[in-house]
Structures are given as structure tokens and as C-alpha cells.
């Protein structure tokens, strides 16, 4: 499998995600935001976390309109896989690839802690290595992760099963306490209609080694690589 990790000015989690992809068995190339094309044969595009363009105007607003995003939109339109993590999720929302927006955390605080996520469905390219309803242990680190959408969009996301992950406790219960940024319906990640684009605030790429306390994040990258058996 071939992955392209897009680097914007101010991205800072690209190294972590490159490592997680390589560990799972993917070829990885970094792509600069000013490029107009993705490397030939790209299966997966990853928009990593960070603070692209210093979060000027709105988080992800400038990056969402960068030159390379036309190529990313075309890739997604062809059914290609796209994963946006943290700032990458904000960029996906700003670029129109996913609906809604990530607003300032409801408590106004930057949150940075371990977080359990409930896997809403395990029949997608991103989650097949997990069990449905499994509570996975990952990290969050953001100031603007408060998922917000209008009532109609929210109803569509729920109705079409496009919620990927929800904030939950260690037992998998979706509680108000576990939803520390105030997201609507405790949403931590959503899919596009065709399930080929995933945006999520938490960082699975940071829990891939026993050395740092957990490996629950590996499943996401292993799921992606196993979606391309010819290259595994």
C-alpha cells in the first residue's frame, strides 16, 4: 500500500503518522502542500495533526484551500482513502470533504490526555481490525475539537451510520464526562458518505508502542494496510 502524508507549514505530527504507517507495512511518501499532484499510485492520503498556518483565520481554513487539496479532493472523488487526524480533521471540514466544523472546546481549555473511543462500526477500511463497540485507548491533544454541525447534518450522519468514533469511558460507555471538548453527540470522528474519508480528533498514531503505554492505535493503520492485500 502507498500512503502520501501531506505536510503543511505548521504540521507537526507527520513524523508520528509516517512511523505508524511504516510499522503497519505501508510505503510512505511526504508531500508538500504546494504540490499539485499526489505521487502515482497513492492509495491513502493522510493529513496529519499540527497547527497548519498557525491556525490563522480558523483552524484548517488556509490549509483546506492549499494547492494540493484539489488533488486530495480528486483522489477522494475517485473513492481513494483519506485520513485526517486532529488538524487534519479540521482541514477536511474546511475543505468541504467532510461536513460540520471543529469549534473551540466548550471549556475553553486545550485538552491533552489519554482518551477512550468507542468504535461505532468495524466494517470500514479504517476499523476492520477492531471489534464493533470496542473501546480503544488513544490520545487527544487539541484546543478546537468541539464537533459542531447543523441539526440536519447531524441527523444525516447518525442516520447513515457515518459516526466513526465517540468519546467514551474505559468500559465503552458514551458519557458526558468522557466528552471533554463538548462535541455534539460525543462525536470524535466521522466518515464521508462513501466511507472512504475519515476525520478524527484523537491521535491513534501516538499509541502504537508498548514503550509509551499502549498499542490500541495500531489497529487503525493495520486495517488500512490490510485493505490493500496486493501490497501488504
Amino acid at each position, binding site marked *: 500500500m502507498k500512503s502520501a502524508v501531506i505536510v503543511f507549514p505548521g504540521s507537526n505530527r507527520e513524523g508520528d503518522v509516517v512511523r505508524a504507517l511504516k510499522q503497519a507495512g505501508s510505503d510512505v511518501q511526504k508531500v508538500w502542500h504546494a504540490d499539485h499532484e499526489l505521487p502515482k499510485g497513492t492509495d491513502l492520503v493522510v493529513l496529519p495533526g499540527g497547527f497548519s498556518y498557525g491556525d490563522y483565520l480558523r483552524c484548517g481554513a488556509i490549509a483546506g*484551500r492549499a494547492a494540493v487539496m484539489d488533488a486530495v479532493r480528486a483522489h477522494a472523488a475517485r473513492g481513494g482513502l483519506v485520513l485526517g487526524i486532529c488538524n487534519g480533521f479540521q482541514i477536511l471540514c474546511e475543505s468541504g470533504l467532510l461536513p460540520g466544523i471543529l469549534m*473551540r472546546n*466548550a471549556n475553553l481549555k486545550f485538552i491533552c490526555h489519554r482518551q477512550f473511543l468507542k468504535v461505532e462500526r468495524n466494517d470500514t477500511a479504517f476499523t476492520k481490525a477492531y471489534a464493533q463497540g470496542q473501546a480503544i485507548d488513544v490520545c487527544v491533544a487539541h484546543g478546537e475539537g468541539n464537533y*459542531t454541525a447543523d441539526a440536519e447534518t447531524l441527523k444525516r450522519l447518525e442516520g447513515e451510520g457515518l459516526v466513526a468514533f465517540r468519546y467514551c469511558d474505559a468500559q465503552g460507555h458514551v458519557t458526558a464526562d468522557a466528552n471533554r471538548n*463538548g462535541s455534539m453527540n460525543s462525536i470524535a470522528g466521522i466518515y464521508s458518505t462513501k466511507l472512504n474519508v475519515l476525520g478524527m480528533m484523537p491521535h491513534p498514531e501516538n499509541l502504537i508502542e508498548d514503550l509509551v503505554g499502549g498499542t490500541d492505535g495500531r489497529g487503525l493503520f493495520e486495517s488500512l494496510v490490510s485493505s490493500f492485500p496486493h501490497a501488504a
Partner: protein
Amino acid sequence: MKARVTVTLKNGVLDPQGKAIEGALKSLGVEGIAGVRQGKVFDIELETGDKNAAEASLKAACEKLLANTVIENYRVELI
């Protein structure tokens, strides 16, 4: 020609920053504040002297970048 674009949150959209400012004003003892909503102001210099062309450019600027119309309204004033 110059313009001022004001971007504000739509009614009903939670504005935690506005709420924090409101709280800070209260704690400073500023009286008579019923509520605060935070927005953004852009002062824009236009190349054109034509009012219609200016309005078209500004509308495109707002729709494409300055406002996220999921949560924000914008207002354009030519000055």
C-alpha cells in the same frame, strides 16, 4: 476603494469565547453587559473603483474563505 467585512457567529451557535469575555467583563465590574458574541473584522483594500465589481469580489472572498457559512454570517460594507 475600501471595504469592511464583519464575520459573526450565527444565532444559536455556542460561543465559548464570547461567554469567557462576558465573564471577564463582569469580574472587572463593568456594569450593564447583557451578553457578548465575538466576531472578526477584515479591512480590505480593493483594486477596483467599481461598486458592483467590488461587491462581487467581496462576496467571493467571504464565501470562499473569510466566513465558514456553517456557523458564521458575514456583512460587507463599502467605505
